[in-house]
C-alpha cells in the first residue's frame, strides 16, 4: 500500500468512524484542535487503524500522533516494518 492509498483510507476512516467532516481533513490538521477529536475519539481512531490496517499500535507510540499526517506516518512505518 503506498502513501496515497494510506492517506485515502485514513480519510475514509475519519469520515466513517469518527464522523469528521471530509472538507476539514488535511494532512496537517491536528486531531485535537482542528478536528475536535476528544480523548475517547483518539482511542476510537487507534482501534479503527488497528482493525483496518491490520497493525498493532502500542500506547507509547499512539501518544506521538498529533496530526493526520503523523497518523499516516505511523501506519506507513508499521506496514513497512
Amino acid at each position: 500500500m503506498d502513501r496515497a492509498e494510506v492517506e485515502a483510507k485514513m480519510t475514509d476512516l475519519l469520515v466513517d468512524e469518527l464522523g469528521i467532516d471530509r472538507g476539514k481533513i488535511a494532512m496537517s490538521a491536528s486531531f485535537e484542535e482542528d478536528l475536535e477529536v476528544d480523548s475517547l475519539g483518539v482511542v476510537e481512531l487507534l482501534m479503527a487503524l488497528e482493525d483496518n490496517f491490520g497493525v498493532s499500535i502500542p500506547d507509547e507510540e499512539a501518544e506521538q500522533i498529533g496530526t493526520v499526517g503523523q497518523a499516516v506516518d505511523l501506519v506507513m512505518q508499521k506496514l513497512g516494518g
Partner: protein
Amino acid sequence: MAGRVALVTGGSRGIGRAIAEKLGADGHRVAVNYRSRRDAADEAVAAIVAGGGEAVAVEGDVGDAAAVAAMFGAVEEAFGPVEILVNNAGITADDLLLRMKPEDWDAVIRTNLSSAFLTTKAALRGMLKARWGRIISIASVAGIAGNPGQANYAAAKAGLIGFTKSVAKEVGSRGITVNAVAPGFIETDMTDALGGEVREAVLPSIAVGRFGTPVEIASAVGYLASDEASYVTGQVLVVDGGLSF
C-alpha cells in the same frame, strides 16, 4: 423492539437468571455466563428458549482476564458483539473484618469488582463502533449503606458504583449508557443463607414489608437495557422495597 445481543454474567442462578429470562422475553439474544454450574446455566437457557427466545450458555470465570476474553469470543461467535452487558456475577465471603481472611477479601473484590473492569473493557470496543450500548452492573444497598460482616462485599459493590459513574462520563457521548441497580434483600440462595433471626430483624425496616423477588430486579434491568432508557446514565437505581430511603 429490536433484539440485541445481551451477556449476563453469573446468569445461571438467582437474580442473574431472572435477568437473563427477562432480557430473553424482551426479544434479546442472551448469553448466560456461568462458572461452575453448567446444569443451572443449561436450565436458564432452556427456560428462555421455551419462552420463544434465543440463548446460549457461556462458561468463564469473570475474574480471570483470559477466561473473559474467551467468553467474549464465544458470545461473538454465537450472536455477534455484545450490546447489553449485565455485570451480575458475585460471591460473598462474609465475616467480621477482624476475622476476615485476606483471601476472602481478594476473592470478593476479584469476582465482584475486577470482573466488571474486564468485561466492560471487552464489551466497549464493539459498543463504541455501534454507537449504542447498555452496561448495567448489579450493586447492592450494602455498597451504599454498608453492612456488618460484609466489608469486602460492600467495598466491591461501592466500587462498582464509582466505576459505573466514571465510565458513564467517558462514553456518554457515544450512545452508551452505564448504570447500576442496587438490590436490597431479595429471595435468593444468597439470602437463604441468612438465619431466620436476621430475616426477622430486617423485615421491619422494609417499607413494602417483604423481601423482593429476582424478577423485581430483572424488571429494573430490563428498563435500563431498553431504548426507552437512553437518557438515563450514571445512575444507581435502588430496588429495595423502601429499605434505605
